[in-house]
């Protein structure tokens, strides 16, 4: 099976008045058709920016560079803006974090749903209307015909997020970027939305890139996972491996800072310190000021991507020959 999305050495920098902010620092990953990939990390580690970069939605002062960025063999970086527009929404769609503000308040749900459909699919009014109502039903909105004519302010957060998902899926995209789609929702709605996405993914064979800082949500949703820190991929593997056998100290920290259902602990262990200021990155491994197993070499050089098994890579000196291979 060939890769649907190939990204190699993606860099996104923001040229601000205070200096250059490296938001994404050379990430590479592949995504297969129908596969779901999770991206985890703390706030500000470049998860969302990476996905927006792939959709080329980063405007000035941001700057996107990559060695390769292929969607189904098409080079996304060299496409004209016009071609890119026809891909956005049609081949790649984005679900935003905040359902309360992601719908335009002056238009009805139906109008907004129809817009994408008519932009890309060339259907007439009647057809696009039927299609949107069908989409609303597909995402489990009751009274779809009525909701079609309603304005966003009369819908609840969960309903709006469903409408957003309906909108994103209306052109049957090859890839769906979901940027923390459940963070703003309460837990019961969260579960419903996750089930819905899982179900739709299986039915429409869409690849999903699922961004979250919640490992619990991620582990339910995805096949493979990338752990990001300061714009770099620090660990990538299958989700089962990551949960059972995390390697990078940052991943271990993330897992330890989460309460577990069947294990009773007195205190959760947070990761000490904060994400460093991107304008003032620490030398060497960006995680070293917060790392418990820090060594001399960590402060000097950025670690390389080490292979643990064929499907498990980690960027940490603890696992490299050069760093002494402290851990197996």
């Amino acid at each position: 099976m060939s890769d649907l999305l190939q990204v190699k050495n993606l860099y996104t920098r923001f040229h601000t008045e205070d200096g250059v902010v490296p938001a994404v620092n050379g990430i590479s990953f592949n995504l297969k058709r129908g596969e779901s990939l999770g991206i985890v990390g703390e706030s500000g580690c470049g998860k969302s920016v990476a996905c927006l970069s792939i959709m080329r939605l980063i405007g000035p002062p941001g700057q996107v560079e990559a060695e390769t960025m292929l969607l189904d063999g098409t080079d996304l970086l060299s496409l004209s803006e016009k071609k890119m527009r026809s891909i956005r929404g049609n081949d790649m769609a984005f679900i935003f974090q905040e359902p309360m503000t992601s719908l335009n308040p002056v238009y009805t749900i139906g109008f907004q749903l129809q817009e994408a459909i008519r932009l890309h699919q060339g259907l007439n009014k009647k057809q696009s209307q039927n299609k949107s109502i069908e989409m609303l039903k597909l995402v489990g909105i009751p009274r779809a015909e009525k909701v079609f004519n309603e304005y966003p302010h009369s819908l609840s957060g969960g309903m709006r997020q469903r409408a957003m998902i309906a909108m994103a899926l209306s052109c049957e995209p090859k890839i769906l970027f979901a940027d923390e789609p459940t963070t703003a929702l309460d837990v019961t709605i969260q579960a419903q939305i996750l089930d819905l996405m899982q179900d739709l993914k299986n039915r429409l064979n869409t690849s999903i890139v699922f961004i979250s800082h919640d490992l619990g949500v991620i582990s339910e949703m995805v096949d493979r996972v990338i752990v990001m820190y300061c714009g770099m991929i620090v660990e990538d593997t299958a989700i089962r491996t990551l949960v059972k056998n995390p390697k990078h100290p940052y991943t271990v920290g993330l897992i330890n800072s989460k309460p577990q259902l069947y294990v009773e602990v007195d205190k959760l262990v947070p990761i000490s310190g904060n994400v460093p200021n991107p304008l003032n990155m620490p030398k060497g491994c960006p995680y070293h000021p917060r790392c418990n197993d820090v060594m001399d070499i960590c402060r000097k050089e950025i670690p390389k991507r080490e292979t643990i098994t064929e499907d498990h890579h980690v960027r940490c000196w603890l696992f490299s020959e050069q760093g002494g291979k402290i851990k197996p």
Partner: protein
Amino acid sequence: MNRFFARLFRNPFKMGSNDTNNNEAVLTPGKIIWKRFRRNKVAMIGSFILLVLIILAILAPVLTPYERDAIDLRNQEEPPTAEHFFGTDRQGRDLLTRNLYGGRISLTVGLVASSLQMIIGVLMGSLAGYYGRWVDTVIMRITDMVISFPFLALAITAAAILGPSIYNTMLIIGLLTWTETCRLVRGQFLSIKQMEYIEAAKSSGAGEFRLIWRHMLPNALAPILISATLIMATAILIEAALSYLGLGVQPPIPSWGNILEPARSMTVLMNMWWLWLPPGFLIFISVLSINLVGDGLRDALDPRLKN
């Protein structure tokens, strides 16, 4: 081409309401605003007065038996009588007739000038707000320049150079008042640009034109509408001032401003009140009622004032 324009100018508040055969009432933003506006008594009085003024102006030929410019040299400067309710002017023309017809001109100048400034202001403001960077800088510096001229001096100079006429009056007022709208729209666009639904529209493949016209402008419509209303009142005042000075609408075409013109003489001011009181009052009441409507709109459109 027609269909293109129809789609372009479709009322966003009505969007989708007639798309399906659904009988249940949907509370559109338009309906909500109308409901709130109706509850505002002062604004309703204002709109009623304005409506009366407009109807009087439209029905002018029906309401008076006299010709607009008919000179009657036997009846010069007559005080109000049963034949001439508002008296006559220096040429013996019926003043009620001239005030009614003057309303047509004054209100039209106000409306056209305000629409003109709105078009220029929205265009410049949205370009500045959307594109930012050097476009923004250039447009805002032009705005600063226009604002920093003493207004009446510039208007008078322009009227003197272009020559006084109705159309030039509209043009001058339009070209000198767009700055407020421009700054307003720019500010609105700067904040709307950051909204997530704009990012969402971009991510579903909307182009720049569509983004500006269909997604951002309708969200900035409320303050634009309010400011256009208030500027219409200002435009009526400026027209009156220019016409009073003889630089606006030229006789024999009447406007409330140039009917006032004889009031430049002290004798008229002291002894012949019927020459200047009615047009003065009409200017006052129309400006007041438009301002009341504007304030009412502001209250009805302000999302922070949820009922």
